């Protein structure tokens, strides 16, 4: 596989999830636990509060496989999740973080 194809493969096989949640201890466990208990790998996690709103936003970079629609439905069912949006892997949120992730 050459570099270009590898890049395409990456683009096709990943997705970015944007999840709005109530901000309290335990929410991250609820969300991430849904993935880990299904052996569904989460490649990237970002989470910060949304101002003083009592809400936070979680961004997840995940592999896109046939279970993803079911995962999104399961996330939507969580009491502390107020919204979830799905984006392509080329979403900007994870793109400028590379400097922090050099070996």
């Amino acid at each position, binding site marked *: 596989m050459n570099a270009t194809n590898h890049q395409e493969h990456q683009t096709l096989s990943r997705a970015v999830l944007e999840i709005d949640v109530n901000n309290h201890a335990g929410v991250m466990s609820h969300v991430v636990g849904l993935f880990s208990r299904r052996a569904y790998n989460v490649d990237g996690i970002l989470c910060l509060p949304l101002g003083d709103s009592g809400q936070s936003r979680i961004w997840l970079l995940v592999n896109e496989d046939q279970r993803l629609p079911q995962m999104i439905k399961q996330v*939507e069912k969580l009491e502390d999740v107020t919204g979830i949006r799905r984006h392509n892997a080329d979403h900007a949120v994870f793109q400028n973080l590379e400097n922090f992730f050099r070996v």
Partner: protein
Amino acid sequence: MTETLTGAQITVRLLERQGIRTLAGIPGGAILPIYDALGQSSLIHHVLARHEQGAGFMAQGMARVSGQPAVCLASSGPGATNLLTAIADAKLDSIPLVAITGQVPKAMIGTDAFQEVDTYGLSIPITKHNFLVSSAEELLEVIPRAFAIAASGRPGPVLIDIPKDVQMQAIEITHWPAPGERQPAPAADAWALSEASGMINAAKRPILYLGGGVVHAGASGLAVKLAEKAGLPTVMTLMALGAMPVDHPLSLGMLGMHAARYTNLALDECDLLIAVGARFDDRATGKVAAFCPQARIIHIDIDPAELDKIKTAHIGITADVQESLNRLLPAVATNARSDWRQRVDSLKAEHPFLMPDVDKPLSHFGLIRTVAACLDDEAVIATDVGQHQMWVAQAYPLRRPRQWLTSGGLGTMGFGVPAAIGAALAEPQRTVVCFTGDGSILMNIQELVTAAEEKVNLKIVLMDNATLGLVHQQQTLFYGERLFASQFKASPDFIKVAQGFGIAAVDLDHATNPCAALIEAISRPGPCLIHASIDAEQKVYPMVPPGAANRDMIGA
């Protein structure tokens, strides 16, 4: 009026305001403030279980017969971990439960304090939602919300972990929140309903497939009406038994792994499957690719995540089952569907369900049917888990929703006795029968003394084959008859055990007239253990072997 109350007093008051009149639990250090407040309640009867798992299943029994959330209590650490199996069981069978656990004081959380365990973390994957309460004020929001969550949408268990200092914190209360109640689900999509009625009207060989959601939604009567109007042969999951009387002319009984052959064969031929409050569980579908291979699918469920999870539906409707059926009913054409009904009848005649030795009261089927003959539809029938459970599911004439209490999803041995005690506590006017096995009863045997203490009207029918019957069966059939760890080399004297725990006991093995002894034991009020030895070589038949298609059943 302003009152100054502790978190513990607030908790008890909120439970009273929720209408809780009976709950089960076991006290311990971290929940003693709540127990101290509970002791002052003149409204709530506390049932002292002998193991927290027993308390959890008693609450389940109350919830399963009433449809209302029920409460169990446990202390921190081992009290909480002991509760987990009953909570997980409630999650898989969608039973509304509110579990309240004591926790070490907030300042000690995370220090490996005595009897500290991460109850919140442990309960995340097995609850619908959970709370770790951080102040007495928060209880005013959390407790009503826990009841609302447990009862709304797809019901399920909610856990509230309350640190001891929160229980002791005193605050001023001026206003009480409204009790948490079931919130209405969004209405069914009108277009989807009209498509569904069109598909039902156009179908030649439809089958109605009822799941536990029909019972939870109180929609059994509507489901029967739909079946009658549209001429729909009807199958039920293990959880839905009782939704349609099993002797109804349209009933094909339970589907799946231990269905009658004709039931699975009819499903194999259907051209439309109308799944209502059912989740295509593997024990129901067998090999999914071969399940109803010719059928288009209408799937109605209150949980959106169940749609398209296992089988893609042609029409998926996320809605309350009762509301959907109510609106579907007028749109569905009256249709006797004689050709399809005749075909189903001929399948029934060619591949009937056989109950060998049913006329012998001490055979497995004979015992179940003899017990049934002693009772009417008002009785509650609970089971444990194993061969006896499947035989009862196959042979007992269940005719009423909420008549049937069984651990379906988690399949928890030890469920039966405490769940039946809970049912008897919630509905003391009924006779509650618990069919159990010698393997299962030992997993919560300690609750016999609770049954004696509460004088519940519970008849435990112990079908004793001195084996772990389903394991024995699988080893015999699929592991080259290498029986290992499935035969008990020593068995307790169950009559003495029951008597030792303070309940009456009858051994049908030694009765000169087993039928008379059974009738006498069932009609005498109060708890009683009825012991009968059964043949360990008997199998649950017919059976879909693991991984096989439902059409490929073995045995009988």
